[in-house]
């Protein structure tokens, strides 16, 4: 028990060089704006993904070496990156720490302190539960098995495992990047060959913590209590909690998705080149964790267009640079996917057996996921957030209250006030735009008969932190205004 615990701690500590590296760069890019606090969650979130990327590089370029080789080179590179990133800005690091000290140095009332403790308690509970229970859910088991095969082969060019002759019978037609899976491989390289319940089991909960911290760090103009409640409701979202304890990939996918969008808003505010480059590269890392994060690109495209209000050469140039930097991380994977599956991202079409008409897999998928009739797709698909509070918690109900309050506030300015919906000059307005664009995409896809956005309840979760970051501060602010008390 104790050895497993220390093994898990050691595993998490191995992320530190990469966390420092990303944190340093993020802090440098965000040093002038209000988004300084975002540097830490960005470091926590993207540090391990960067580690995965480095590991894949060596698995592809230097396959079948010893465990010690990979551990040594990956940690060396991480340490070098951390030094490169942190040493030049060691002085401003003191200021960075002061930011976080300032966040909590405020006088916390009993309520705020209780909320904070509840947040931490939730994360600890998730970590402990994940640590104690065996791996059992279907998808995490598949990811873990994929990682085991990679660990055995030490050659990432064999991934995805569609040729079962090389993978001891294991069939894993995944088209996602190895961002999450390589964290399991890393666990195995560090010594837990069985990849049991030690470090890798904690990764999902770790990302819940990172997202909670991000929710505390964004929207810095709003009440601290509102941000606390956002974080608490995110951690307490039932399906998030289940995903965390069962080691699902979704918490890492959602964390990267949310933080990239937050970072991009900082870019829109400051228009600094370093923020543009960092947003683009981190978008690439987000794509590297899960194919669904490809949604980042159209979402950013729309809000960017709304913000710029005109199509100029500069916009196209920066946009092209952004897409190039984002895709450069994942293009090798997409090319491999085209070679294996015939398309950069594969889903239903990845499994040939599923295409056999006489087996009726498509019918099975629709019925099993309650997406057979248009009403089912509307109610259980588009309206998942409202029709399944046992899974999504209160978020979408609060969201609609906040939506009414927000629209009422905006429209109070009289004729022409609706134009404010298209102006990105506040976190609230930004999150509103993101939410609306996402929901419009969901509704349009439903209207044209596509199931892409609704076939999986986890897809609806994608904007869960954005929904909370938008709605809770509005409601809390309204309560404060109404009662005039802190």
């Amino acid at each position: 028990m104790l050895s497993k615990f220390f093994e898990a701690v050691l595993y998490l500590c191995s992320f530190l060089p990469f966390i420092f590296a990303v944190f340093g760069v993020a802090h440098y890019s965000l040093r002038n704006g209000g988004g300084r606090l975002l540097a830490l969650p960005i470091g926590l979130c993207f540090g391990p993904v960067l580690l995965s990327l480095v590991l894949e590089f060596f698995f592809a370029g230097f396959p079948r070496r010893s465990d010690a080789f990979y551990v040594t080179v990956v940690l060396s590179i991480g340490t070098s990156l951390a030094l490169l990133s942190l040493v030049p800005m060691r002085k401003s690091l003191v200021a960075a720490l002061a930011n976080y000290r300032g966040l909590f140095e405020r006088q916390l009332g009993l309520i705020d302190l209780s909320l904070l403790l509840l947040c931490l308690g939730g994360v600890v509970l998730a970590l402990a539960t994940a640590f104690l229970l065996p791996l059992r859910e279907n998808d995490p088991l598949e990811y873990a098995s994929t990682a085991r095969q990679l660990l055995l082969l030490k050659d990432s060019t064999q991934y995805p495992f569609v040729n079962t002759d090389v993978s001891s019978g294991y069939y894993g037609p995944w088209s996602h990047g190895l961002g999450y899976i390589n964290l399991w491989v890393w666990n195995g390289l560090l010594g837990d060959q069985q990849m049991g319940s030690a470090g890798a089991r904690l990764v999902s909960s770790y990302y819940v913590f990172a997202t909670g911290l991000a929710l505390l760090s964004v929207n810095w103009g709003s009440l601290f209590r509102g941000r606390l409640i956002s974080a608490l409701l995110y951690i307490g979202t039932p399906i998030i909690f289940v995903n965390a304890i069962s080691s699902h990939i979704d918490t890492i996918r959602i964390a990267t998705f949310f933080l990239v969008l937050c970072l991009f808003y900082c870019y829109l505010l400051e228009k600094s080149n370093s923020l543009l480059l960092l947003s683009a590269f981190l978008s690439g890392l987000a794509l590297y964790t899960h194919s669904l994060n490809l949604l980042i690109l159209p979402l950013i495209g729309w809000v960017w267009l709304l913000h710029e209000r005109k199509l100029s050469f500069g916009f196209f140039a920066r946009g092209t640079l952004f897409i190039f930097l984002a895709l450069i991380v994942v293009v090798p994977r997409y090319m491999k996917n085209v070679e294996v599956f015939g398309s950069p991202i594969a889903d239903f079409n990845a499994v040939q057996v599923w295409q056999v008409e006489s087996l009726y897999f498509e019918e099975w998928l629709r019925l099993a996921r309650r997406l057979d009739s248009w009403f089912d797709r509307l109610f259980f698909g588009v309206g998942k957030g409202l029709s399944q509070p046992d899974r999504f918690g209160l978020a979408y109900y609060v969201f609609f209250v906040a939506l009414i309050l927000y629209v009422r506030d905006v429209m109070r300015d009289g004729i022409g006030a609706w134009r404010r919906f298209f102006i990105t000059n506040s976190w609230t307005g930004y999150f509103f735009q993101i939410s609306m664009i996402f929901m419009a995409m969901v509704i349009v896809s439903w209207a044209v008969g596509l199931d892409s956005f609704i076939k999986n309840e986890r897809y609806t979760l994608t904007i869960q932190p954005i929904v909370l970051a938008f709605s809770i501060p509005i409601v809390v602010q309204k309560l404060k205004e109404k009662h005039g008390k802190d």
Partner: protein
Amino acid sequence: MVRIRFAALMGRLSQSRASIFEVAVVVIFAVASVSPWVYLARSGFSKFQINSISVFDSDESKYAALRHGAAQCIQFINNFLPEDAKLLVFRQADFAYYGKRPFISFEDPKLLPLYEQATAESASQFLQGLGVTHLLVPDYAVPPLYNSSVAELLSDPKLASLVFEAQGYKVFSLGNISRARVSGLALSGEWFTSSLVRHLNPAWQVQNGDGTYMFANEGHPLSDNISLERLYAVYGMAPLDIAPSKAKSDSVLIVDTESSYFTVSGSLRLSGSASLYLALYDGAGRYLGLRHMWSGLAKNRRVTVSGASIAGAPVHSVRPVIALDGTASAEAPKIELIKWEGEGVKESDGYDPITAIAAGWDFPRADVNPVFWGRRLVGTKETVGFKQLSSHQYWMKSPVQQHSDMPNSIKFRASGRGLFTVNILFACMSVDCYGSYAAGEFFLSGGEQSVEISNIEIERLKMIETGIVDDVRGKRRVTLPEEDKSMLPNRFSGKLNVRLEFIAPVSKAFKRTKYQFVELNVSDIVIE
């Protein structure tokens, strides 16, 4: 630095309604946020079905301790199938991670030709050509299991024989197996459905706890106590709704004392999701539990129904029932329930103690003295209306703990004169073991003339599906010698002592298991 302005806060709370309102809002949010954790932590543990002892073990040990069909099947495969056995798995995730035998996933493109095979025979040959020796089938709908010839393969015991089953998960062995059909029951008549299901108004359709519905053959009384509660009361602890004597068995198939091999095969027109189970009954007509046979999912079309199971005493009869999920409907089922000859199929030869010891299993022992508190009975020459002789169950803190301080007798009265026949049913249930052995002595003493019956040979019986635990039940009919008839008084006051030695095979992974569940039932006493 965090400073709590507790006094100021309390002061404000006492002075301001607004603050109280705000506090209420925050509390509601906090409760709403915490409740999922509490719920999920609890349901999470029950969902993962792991006891509180082994949580600090390795993942493999924890998984092996799960009371889940997949985990038990994989444990069986790892421990008892030959090293060169190769499995076709219809749920890859668990087996790929925890299994220790070569396997092929049902999604592997190599199997594309399999799904084009027209007959079960050719499907079997194709699989054997790939080196597949066994199949691992889950308890939920997987399209090839109702849309291809694989379905027929599973209901043809001459081609694929069930070797292990646990909570709907099944391990089949491929190969030519000699087995003759004993009897069959064509179930192509009209099936009755009703939503009028209440505990006091038992109808044919019952609502399961998970929202599914079940229905059974029309035209026969519900003599088997199916009700909302009883579906989960698989230990026979709840009172009977209808006396066993009213039971009719013409819609059920009778199981021999020896275990029997059952298959279902046929088709039905399905819209939605459905599963077919066998409802199990003992000799008194009491409902014992459900055995999963098949699951399917279709949109208003005909699908193949197939499945296999084994049953042995105390299961006396089985009846097919269909569980419909939500708004699903099933029409025109043409299903045949067939009993096949032979030993049935064992859980595994490995449960033989010698083999098990060789495999590194441990056998803790326990002497327990179960307790009966019987109801007052008035018997006749007919079957005594021994509806329920209450059973006693208790948990042993460890497999070797004694319970000698408990009373161990049952008193009953019966009238009439003749030969007493006592049927004793007992069950030793071990929460964390695959199965258990039981051996015991039974003493019957009555009136002034005490008759001792001992050295009863307890039959080793097949595992009975009991929902969450596995058990082995012994049944012994004891007939008093003819010469003792005269000794029996008209009014009989008897005392039943039971001493049971409990021997449970426990794997290394379960060594620290503390809780063993032991239940004993006296099912009925017949005076002839």
